[in-house]
């Protein structure tokens, strides 16, 4: 902590942080608050407390179907992104191929391109080649945008690992596959796991891609919510949203356990 900060400034700093915290968290708090409100209309602060909106959501076919679809896609995406991204990260870390740096940038490029541009391209290509979109389209496109996260977290963990471990394993008689399974993968497991959870979260929350790549019967949870919000929402929307926030909080806790969130404080 830099000492000799004038006390007035220090107070101002804490006020600033508090205000910013309020600003950043307000929408989430509001949504949670609305979800327990008695009233039919969306109002905050809530008048009366009830869990009936949660009951409605859990009994609603539309929401359950959307949730099921979101989960299916997210699981597929998590598996695909973790395996493909993890393998790529291992190869990139070894830097044995020419142009490893350029390749690493290529793998991180979906982060740079705005999702809407990618969404249009994907929709147009798929329609031209295969016609109507399907769960596969969603899974594929979500995997592409989740891939960079897995690559990044895995590379970060690999960068801190002992570079001599694989050589040592070779002198101990380990062949190629043995080295991969007994040395390399255990080394980057925390990175892989964190990447997997990121991938799940990204897919589960993804709105723009899913909005473009939808059709009747192919609605994910965020799309369902968006649809409701365009017309006249009732607090059940807030209930669904709060459940989703809960999932996110859970994922953050898990990622912190696996990787430590301090990593994101300094790259």
């Amino acid at each position, binding site marked *: 902590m830099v000492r000799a900060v004038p006390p007035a400034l220090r107070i101002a700093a804490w006020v600033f942080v508090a205000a910013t915290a309020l600003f950043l968290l307000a929408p989430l708090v509001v949504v949670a608050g609305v979800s327990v409100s008695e009233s039919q209309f969306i109002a905050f602060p809530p008048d009366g407390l009830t869990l009936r909106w949660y009951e409605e959501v859990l009994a609603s076919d539309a929401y359950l179907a959307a949730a099921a679809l979101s989960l299916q896609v997210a699981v597929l995406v998590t598996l695909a992104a973790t395996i493909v991204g993890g393998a790529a990260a291992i190869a990139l870390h070894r830097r044995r191929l020419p142009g490893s740096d350029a390749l690493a940038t290529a793998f991180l490029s979906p982060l740079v391109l705005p999702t809407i541009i990618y969404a249009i391209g994907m929709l147009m290509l798929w329609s031209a080649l295969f016609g109507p979109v399907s769960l596969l389209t969603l899974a594929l496109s979500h995997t592409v945008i989740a891939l960079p996260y897995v690559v990044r977290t895995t590379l970060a963990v690999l960068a801190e690992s002992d570079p001599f471990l694989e050589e040592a394993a070779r*002198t101990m008689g380990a062949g190629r596959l043995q080295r991969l399974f007994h040395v390399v993968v255990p080394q980057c497991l925390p990175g892989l796991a964190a990447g997997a959870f990121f991938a799940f979260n990204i897919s589960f929350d993804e709105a723009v891609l899913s909005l473009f790549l939808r059709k009747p019967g192919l609605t994910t949870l965020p799309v369902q919510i968006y649809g409701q919000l365009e017309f006249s929402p009732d607090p059940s929307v807030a209930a669904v949203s709060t459940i989703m926030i809960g999932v996110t909080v859970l994922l953050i806790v898990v990622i912190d356990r696996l990787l430590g969130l301090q990593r994101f404080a300094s790259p």
Partner: protein
Amino acid sequence: MAQVTLRDIRKSFGNVEVLHGISLDIASGEFVSLLGASGCGKTTLLRIVAGLESVSAGSVAIDGREVTPLPPERRDIAMMFQSYALLPHLSVFENVRFPLRMRRLGSREAQRDKVAAALETVQLSHLADRRPRQLSGGQQQRVALARAIVSDPKVLLLDEPLSNLDARLREEMQVELIELHRRLGLTTLFVTHDQEEALSLSDRIILINAGRIEQQGRPEEIYARPATAFASSFLGSANLVPATVEQGDHGPVALLADGQRLPLAPEATARGPATLVLRQEDLMLQIAGSEGLRATIATRVYLGGRIRYVLDLAGSRVSVLAPNDLVFRRGDDVCLAIRPQAVGVLPT
């Protein structure tokens, strides 16, 4: 246990050749040190024997079998790395068992017995269930050693394994290595830049200078009779003084730059310009007027139990160690005595 044969090994990294045709034989059960300064190629040579580096030319044979094209995992070797390279996600026990698993040596029970024996040898049986990060540096090193001997390799390769230890631990480990070698008799190739280490551990020392073998032989031989100026300055703390060797009335005599004469042993046959090798521990420092060469004190370095004096002898800098009851000051005139047999003569 095997012999290792290296024939005309050359190695280049890009356009730079680092090994210029090295050939050597290691007998079964021999403890050989590769000794040299940083960058001389000794570690590269070790890695070539391990199979971690390919050769640009030449061949490697272990136990009569040509292994040059084989990767490390197909050679019957074990290697100890400078940084130990323990697998952090496995326990000590599993770390030591790893080579047996990878090479599929024996049943699970047999492996367990071997691991227990190896841990017993390095006195770490009580830490078998710990993870590497819970151990001290010295303990991690022992685990690495246990892991290296557990598979009973044909050749044991050690890459400066003691460099990361503090002085006391290093001395302990040196003793342990000597004991271990005596007990197990493994053919061992040991890389170090520390000449005292090489002298104390080895059956044979191979002194490497800029990618070539400068000299090789038993520690006593090399120390007593270094063949080149490089060897002299690397082994033992030698002073090099230019002189001219002439035939005197009673035998060969070295004529120093300021005219002083130093009698040499009758065996010194070289004549003409030469370099004298005067080891610090062979030089005796006495007060002025005694028998011996005249010199002047230039610097005094207090070392606790002893004092090192840097002297000006006939225009050359010479270091001498003396007990700390003899105290001279800068500028004092002194006398240096040395037995003629202890003077090394290198023709220039």
